[in-house]
């Protein structure tokens, strides 16, 4: 089991969702984050105060997948999230020791197989 953690542009989220659905990945968790990287930073002014935004809005996906699904998942994200401009984000693949489905207590592979779908 692996946890694929992808950081992408917010405006690419819908495209990535569809790409994941097409790759038959139907379980994941999304959160709003902010990232610092190579992007040119915006300056903002509030009355006499000028600030430089070191962080840009990003969206993070956490996707628990069984080993054979790692590659298709990563490829789907790479394809759907790319714009070619600096700031497209990163994907991290982390090892997972155990997965449980809370509703049933099922473990590992069974735990990430969506209801009523053979993945």
């Amino acid at each position: 089991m692996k946890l694929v953690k992808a950081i992408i542009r917010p405006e690419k989220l819908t495209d990535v969702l569809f790409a994941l659905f097409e790759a038959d990945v139907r379980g994941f968790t999304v959160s709003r984050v902010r990232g610092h990287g190579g992007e040119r930073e915006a300056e903002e002014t509030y009355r006499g105060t000028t600030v430089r935004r070191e962080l840009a809005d990003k969206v993070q996906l956490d996707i628990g997948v069984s080993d054979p699904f790692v590659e298709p998942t990563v490829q789907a994200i790479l394809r759907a999230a790319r714009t070619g401009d600096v700031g497209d984000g990163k994907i991290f693949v982390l090892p997972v020791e155990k997965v449980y489905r809370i509703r049933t207590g099922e473990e590992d592979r069974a735990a990430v197989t969506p209801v009523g779908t053979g993945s």
Partner: protein
Amino acid sequence: MPTTVPSALSGADIVWVLVSAGLVLLMTPALALFYGGLVRAKNMLNTMMMSFVALGVSLVTWVTVGYSLAFGTGSAWIGDFSMAFLDGVDLEARGTVPHLLFMAYQGTFFVITAALISGAVVERIRFGPYVAFIALWGLFVYAPVCHWVWGGGWIASLGALDFAGGAVVHVNAAAAAWVLARTLGPRTDYGRLALLPHHVPFVVLGAGLLWFGWFGFNGGSALAADRLAVLAFVNTLLAPSATILVWMLLDTVRTGRVTAVGAATAAVVGLVAITPAAGLVSPVSALAIGAIAAAPSHFALVWRARTRLDDSLDVFAAHGVGGIVGALLVGVFADPAWNGSYDGLLHGNPSQLAVQALSIAAVFLYSATVSALIVFALRRITSIRVSPRQEAQGLDVALHGEEAYSDGEGAVLVLESSNPAPAVRAAA
């Protein structure tokens, strides 16, 4: 708007017009809230500013030449420069209130009308060209149209009825909005991604404040604290209430649910529809107008969303369709038993309906044409649309260098003093 004016000042009339002018002024920030709630968070401030800026630009335009072009004697087509820079606009009576007050009250209409247009082009227009557009539009479209209808121009001579601005304000702004939306093109992700209202409570609050302000808009158009003002006020209370009811019904039939955005929109549509009729029809007719107006705007709005016309906040469906329906229905329901003189179809004067239709068509065509000319002129000088990158980033940061809702995290102070500051280290 009544044209017979006795010649001495009346304290009560002054108070009512003062209050009404204040109320109409409040409509512009209220609109900023209403529109702002309907866009995405990253474009909130830009959307608010497109209304708020009219309080600067349009008001100054109005007092310099706008008022004179609209209400100066001039010809049947346009006023003149005789009152430019408020020359001769003093504290003497015009009707029963000081001339200066009349000018100011009309000025608040000018501001809100310009601001209305912005709803069609949010989330993608450059700010400078937008400001230029509304300034020019005010002079070349609003001022003449206002002259035609309220300044003694040709539409007034035809006997068209427009109590508080169905044609002058709503149809007029909607035509410009429609042209602007067409010319700019849809938002990049329009029709592909869901572009949702980021703050519906602001939409509801905005609608509430607009309703409150609209009492000044319609009620104040009587320009006196008299029966006419009462009639206009009460009709402004009743019509939207019927629109809300019918709209909720239509919502329920279509989706099985009553929505808050729908109810707020309905209130505005009802207010738009009663605007041309407020002091001219009976209260029961006002209920009817409110009820009737719901359906056309509702379906226009649903239909529009399936087209490629990204009139983003449905200025045309709400103000255009609502304004047309109201302006036509005043030709049906106008009742001399209530307004003292004017009669519509139901009171034996079918020709009024034709006059109404003509006036709407004229205003729509003129506004659309000249708006298009202004846009084309601006386009020759500069680009009027932001870059795709700015659009993705959001116009608040891209154009104004501000965020509507900031928690300050990751914002690093840029010190402009000689101080060897962290900001400098950060750059290292």
